[in-house]
């Protein structure tokens, strides 16, 4: 009789453990699911942010290109009063262009 009581008590404990474990797993799953569920929303927000930043980057690049275009620069130059150089002087590099007069050289060497 004592043995059968012990067995019943053991079997009850077994069930408690099983139910406890199952309960813990379910609870853990609920916690994890809850936590990850909000991550999904976060992921969506991050995705949207990536798209938004890419578009902003695109728009900034387009602005930069349009402001650095030769058409724009030329118009700006004209507006600021720049004029085209029409008489270019080519410098002959085979001869010295800033030579001191001969007498100065001789006075220096003295």
């Amino acid at each position, binding site marked *: 009789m004592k043995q059968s009581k012990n067995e019943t008590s053991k079997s009850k404990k077994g069930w408690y453990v099983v139910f406890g474990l199952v309960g813990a797993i379910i609870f853990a799953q609920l916690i994890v699911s809850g936590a990850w*569920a909000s991550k999904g929303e976060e*992921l969506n927000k991050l995705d949207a942010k990536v798209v938004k930043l890419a578009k902003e980057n*695109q*728009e900034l690049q*387009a602005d930069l290109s349009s402001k650095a*275009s*030769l*058409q724009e620069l030329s118009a700006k130059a004209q507006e600021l009063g720049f004029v085209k150089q029409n008489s270019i002087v080519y410098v002959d590099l085979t001869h010295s262009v800033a030579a001191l007069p001969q007498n100065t050289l001789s006075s220096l060497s003295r």
Partner: protein
Amino acid sequence: MVASGLRVKFLAAFFLLASVLILSKLFSIQVLKSDEFLVVAKSQYQTSKTIPARRGSILASDGFPLVTFDQIWLLWATVAKIENPQRVAKTLAPLIADKIDDQEAADSVKLQEKIISQEEDRIKKVLTREGASWVPIKHKIKREIKEEIEKLDLAGIGFDPEDDRSYPEGTMAARLLGFVGKDDAGESKGYFGLEGFYDLALSGSRGTKAWEKDAFGNTILFGSNRKFEAMDGMDLKTNIDRSVQFIIERHLEKGIKKYDAVSGLAVVIRPIDGAILALSSVPAYDPAKFSKYESKTYIDPIVGESFEPGSIFKVLVMAAALDSGVIKQDSKCDKCSGPRIIGEYTIDSGTNEYYPNSTLSEIIEHSDNVGMVWVSEKMGVDRLYNYLLKYGFGLPTGIDLQGEASLPLRKKEDWSFIDLATASFGQGIAVTPIQMVRAVSVIANEGKLPVPRVVEKISSGDKDEIVKYPGSQQVISPRAARLVTDMMVGAVESRSNMWFKPKDIKVAGKTGTAQVPIAGHYDPDKTIASFIGFAPADDPKFVMLVILREPKSAPWASQTVAPLWFSIANDLFPYMGIQPK
């Protein structure tokens, strides 16, 4: 007890029946109609979208975008949320109606009002369309307009992003670039120029994304998610130098006005490898508004239209004759004292001036038709024909632009002596400007024929791939090329009073005034004036061809297009670091 037993039996029967009903319904849902419900269920928790591929950019040689992508927007409306379609149409119309380009026109205000009124009617019709719940109102809305509309806070109005082509340099190199339109299936497709030639590389391929979502539409992280990334289109890095392009376009526009020409074109090529540095034909079209122009304006005359080259062709015939050895450097023309009569035709000098015993240099300097007939006579049809083929005439040049015309030469057997004679001074033969500039590059490139090339590299992400082109082919000897170069330098120097150039920069060049063939004869009033040349003559950095169609201010190329050529060249010299020697 009996009643209690009956109740139990009744309840048992009821539960049994209910179970059978539930099971049969479950069987119907899960087995018989499983496919149908699976689809319904999936539509609730699964979603997918197409990831668009960005079309590649076209870059100048300095990396600046000539064509890139721009963010534009589709303006749409949820019909049920629009309370007063009339008011919404009236508010939106002035913002999104097309703007007329010519603001200075006398009736521009009235015209603009009419356009706005038409747009208002159109929007109202769209918003009151029967049975529609969502309607697109207008594509290609720019960011500034979008922001203005957003400020109005109109209920039921929204925007979706779209990609568009953007041209930071406006209409620069329009025909070279081509444009992007739609194909029969409504998909974006490149037409003409680089957009057409490299359409596949520029397009890229779309991707897809499928994922599971929760009741709020958020992604389920550990759900079944699949993603195939889109492959963006590749970028093209061209040899186009936008400063050179800018210079030639500005001068061409001025030149067309100054010399009262119908149109004009210019090509600048680096002779050593055939790199196209600039290429422009004026008037062109605006690629951002291509649909507003006639389709015939899309074709670039530089690659797609032929002309009779006239006297600029003489240098090629002379070079071929020297290379073949039929004439020597010191040969003199013994048939140059008067007009030549060939069958029923008389070939004169055009100016009624004749130069007996001309040297080869003098023939080029005087642009002497009679002298060239003598040269061609020495060559004969067979030899000249073979040289024409070696110069690349009769076949497309292979330039990487869509729309290049293929102009086969007439069969050799069909050539008579008069054909040979007229071909020697560029009449009765049709070439494209790109063929012509390529052929003259042979003289500037020690006798080697380059393949004209616009794109240098194709880039995808961090990877660059250099585009491979066929190598140059030797057409004439370097000696023959040098001799003709000297003749061309002489031709420029002999008329240096007609144009301005820095004194000690050697320029090799040749003018050409060709008649325009119409219905079996030549138009007596219309001409095509051209000048082709390269500089510095002893180490050419560029070969440039400039053509003016039907200039009315003066009859000869030396009075119109040649000064224009030198005005462009004088801007190119300092830019390219070409200095007097």
